[in-house]
């Protein structure tokens, strides 16, 4: 029922660092997430994109050294497709993803706290309906725990190099190509019920 204590402590430490990073990245704010879905504020893709490229280099290096094993989720077609669509709809309505909503709770956001209760109910429904959902997720087959390099018979480093090039190009386009890639900050006026420990924006914009 419990992981060993050292592993729990390690999880807590990793989580604290992850929480600080999500909060400092600004992605624990629903306006940043909605701004990304409206293709206005690219913070979310910048954070995720750089994490994926940097992460991939390290993980495939550690793998080559035999220090770690991969933990790939199975490609159960229906589960991934239906799950991905429901996830996108829910996330756009809610304004947070699961991890950033937990971080938003830490930031004091009330809508995220209500959302975490909703997420518990969503998970409970899944567990309750599991006996019929499990076959449904595999109704169009399950390709197993495969990676893109395995599916295509190519080297992972080819994919990583490609992703790195896309990231570098996107970085330069975002920085020098147009101003639309710039992060829009502090446009939301502080709400009326706040306790006053928020600094007033220098240029408040009427919403």
């Amino acid at each position, binding site marked *: 029922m419990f992981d060993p204590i050292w592993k729990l402590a390690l999880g807590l430490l990793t989580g604290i660092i992850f929480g600080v990073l999500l909060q400092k990245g600004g992605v624990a704010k629903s306006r940043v997430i909605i701004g990304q879905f409206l293709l206005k504020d690219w913070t979310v893709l910048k954070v995720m994109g750089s994490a994926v490229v940097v992460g991939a280099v390290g993980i495939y290096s550690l793998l080559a050294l035999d220090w770690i094993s991969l933990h790939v989720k199975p490609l159960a077609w229906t589960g991934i497709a239906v799950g991905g669509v429901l996830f996108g709809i829910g996330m756009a309505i809610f304004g947070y993803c*699961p991890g950033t909503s937990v971080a938003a709770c*830490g930031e004091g956001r*009330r809508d995220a706290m209500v959302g975490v209760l909703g997420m518990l109910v969503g998970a409970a429904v899944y567990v309750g309906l599991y006996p019929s959902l499990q076959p449904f997720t595999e109704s169009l087959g399950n390709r197993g725990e495969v990676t893109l390099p395995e599916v295509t018979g190519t080297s992972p480093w080819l994919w990583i190099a490609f992703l790195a090039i896309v990231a570098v190009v996107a970085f330069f386009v975002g920085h020098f190509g147009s101003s639309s890639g710039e992060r829009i900050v502090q446009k939301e006026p502080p709400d009326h019920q706040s*306790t006053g420990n928020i600094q007033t924006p220098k240029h408040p914009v009427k919403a």
Partner: protein
Amino acid sequence: MKNPLRNKEWPPYVVGLCIGVLSWFAFATANHPLGITTSFEDGVALIEQLFAPQWAASNEYFTQKTPKISWETMLVVGVFLGAMFSSLASGDRERIVVSAIWEQRFGPSITVRMTAAFLGAGLMMFGARLAQGCTSGHGISGSLQLAASSWLFSILFFGTGVATAILLYGRKGANHV
């Protein structure tokens, strides 16, 4: 030098780079990818087992899986604590219930916003469990392992999210972000 924890925000590329390095750490020390939603599933499964043992015994779920308080459970607790420390250190705390963009489209009603947040979050979690991952488990950890499932999931959720946000807020909604 000013303590960086006192800054309200760090550049997104710096944050992304650190999350990438953190994923090396998670793999190297606990042999575990960063992920959030499995622990929600485990948590409610344990609660259901505790309060409705007979019902749980009749659910195949509990013969196939053994929910537990795990590394990932503590990761979620840590995310909450880390974000709390970080926002307290910088004073970046907002209790916002109804955001500006929501208010200009759906009005100031707290009930409406909270209902939407509850239902939207529930739907999101249900989708995450169907797909076995979320923005962290698939979007970051799966994508960086070049998992086929994760790239498909990420493209689908992002595309659907864009379509839903445009339907909800309209193209002009972006002016209020």
